[in-house]
């Protein structure tokens, strides 16, 4: 147990954090803006992985192009979902939680019917299949890809929300829907677009997770609770999710280094519950009126 190993663990923590964060990004956007707890988020991630698989398998699309393509495909699914179901439920937050759970069952079983329950895999270029040595520290090339994609997406989202007209409108709707409407902002449209955006982000996450692990109809389930906790701990804001994922990712890596993976998970769950006991609004709560 020397310092080099601990350094390795810390660097790995950054990577785990980026994985947790990218899984939670879409959820953060959707929850932060519309207050919708989207239980189908895991299945949107799964759809992202399957759309990459389809594009690769049937159209021969190179992997790196699958990422944006999955974004588009899943964003469209998200759009349909919002128009067809979610928009009727904005005033009933607990019911959206339930309805989206129904959606997750349908998506999971639908994919199983179409693709079968045997796992699929995503082929990636050979350079992503190995590691890079940074001094004495070894890092997997693909983990770097995940980290880069996550950083890029966070930057893009930050620009979108804080530097564009759309971002101003979103924040206006978050603060006060009626007031925003008075300024001619169509809150329905804003909700629709953010939902599609959040879904698309889940799609990108899925395309990445399909390479790290496995493409299965049930793959989404393992990410959804974790992603939720990131969003809730973060308080529903972009910065909150970044910090929450960063801290928990590092904790997971360091605890696993000192104990084992299972115990590390348990400790994190308990710490999260304890944290929210003292700060139920999360790290950086949105200044919106929601309580």
């Amino acid at each position, binding site marked *: 147990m020397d310092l080099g190993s601990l350094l390795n663990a810390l660097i790995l923590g950054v990577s785990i954090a980026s994985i947790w964060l990218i899984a939670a990004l879409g959820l953060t956007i959707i929850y932060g803006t519309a207050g919708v*707890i989207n239980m189908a988020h895991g299945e949107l991630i799964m759809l992202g992985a399957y759309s990459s698989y389809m594009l690769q398998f049937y159209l021969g699309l190179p992997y790196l192009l699958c990422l944006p393509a999955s974004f588009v495909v899943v964003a469209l699914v998200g759009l349909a979902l919002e128009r067809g*179901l979610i928009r*009727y*439920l904005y005033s*009933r*937050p*607990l*019911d959206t*939680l*339930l*309805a989206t*759970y*129904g*959606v*997750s*069952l*349908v998506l*999971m*079983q*639908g994919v*199983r*019917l179409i693709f079968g329950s045997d796992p699929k895999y995503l082929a990636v270029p050979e350079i992503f299949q190995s590691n890079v040595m940074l001094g004495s520290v070894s890092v997997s090339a693909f983990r770097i890809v995940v980290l880069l994609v996550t950083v890029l997406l966070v930057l893009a989202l930050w620009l979108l929300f804080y530097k564009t007209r759309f971002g101003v409108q979103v924040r206006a709707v978050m603060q006060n829907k009626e007031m925003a409407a008075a300024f001619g902002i169509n809150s329905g449209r804003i909700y629709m677009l953010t939902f599609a955006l959040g879904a698309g982000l889940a799609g990108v996450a899925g395309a990445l997770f399909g390479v790290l692990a496995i493409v299965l109809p049930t793959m989404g*389930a393992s990410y959804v*609770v974790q992603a*939720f*906790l990131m969003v*809730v701990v973060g308080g529903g804001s972009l910065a909150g999710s970044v910090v929450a994922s960063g801290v928990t990712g590092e904790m997971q890596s360091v605890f696993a280094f000192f104990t084992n993976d*299972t*115990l590390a*998970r*348990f400790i994190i*769950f*308990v710490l*999260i*519950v304890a944290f*929210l*006991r*003292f700060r*139920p609004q999360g790290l950086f709560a949105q200044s919106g009126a929601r309580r």
Partner: protein
Amino acid sequence: MGNLYHNKIAQWVVYVAFFAALAIIPNMVGDSFLLNQFATYCVYGMLALSISLCWGFGGILNLGQGIAFGLGAYGMAMTMQMQSQTESNPIPPFMLNNSLDYLPLLWQPFQSTLLGLILAVTVPTLFCAAFGGIMFRARVSGPFFAIMTLAMLSAFYTIILDRQAYTGGVNGLTPPSAFQFAGVEVDPYSPTAYWVVLFFLTGATFLAKLITQSSFGLVTQAIRDDSERVRFLGYSVAGYETVIYTISGLIAAVAGCCWVMLVQYVSPAQMDVGFSLSIVIWAAIGGRHSLLGSILGALIIQGAQSYLGDTFLATWLLILGGFFIVVVRFLPNGLASLLEVALGLLARPDPTSSPAPDGGRPLPAE
């Protein structure tokens, strides 16, 4: 006369009729498999009831009811496991496989059946009281509380999986023989087992029904409606929420005990997120504002799963998910609200009829 659905007397009549119907089942069914299955459904009904009480009446969405159910089930399974250990082999076999050659402290109380049963019910109840107390005092509510229960559930799931020597890990506990109490063996396929479960279901339902119609029930419904307002009337919202969450946990713990008595098995799967969510689905489809509706929701969904699940093998989850979406979207109060509307239509055509003697006052939203 108002809607018969809201008539207190009519409600009690229906409740009594429902349980009378359940009570004659053993006379109608000679098939021990069916009887065991019905009894299992009744356990699910108890779970749906507990969710209805806590969510439908208290407004507390609990996605972690598996905690109370699972802890109760583990307590019962430990009790039954110890019943089948003898002087010459005092240690459950799975512990030997995990290199434990003594009975851990955690297991020792379960050597006594009575103490074991008491622990199986009190531990989950006390957990709910503590967890609920802490969370509600911090004013964690609504979706946040739901997510907290999920986190807590996942924590339990993880630790039970990990502490294999004490819990049997993913394999769970499989007490090899039927539960014995006061010298009587409760064969899970016998009418006795069914009676025991039905007794607890009936008891829990009538207790819950009384609670919802009491002053306490009125206050919890007020809290569901607008918890902020109720504080200013002098009620401790956290106190009421904790009590109803705890009672709901108690019912789930009893259900857990009954379940293990029937299936002689428990595993972390009972603390899986999916199982706890399906309890919520039963209550939502049946109608969370109606105790009986929730119970029926559990019976209908589980019955359909058992009997239609194999017919529509591939599409069953699709059907269930779709049905659930439709209910949430169009019938937020579940199938029970269909009855409410139907009876409402019956009542409407005759607006001139004289008011009922008691003033026909609307009841706590049943």
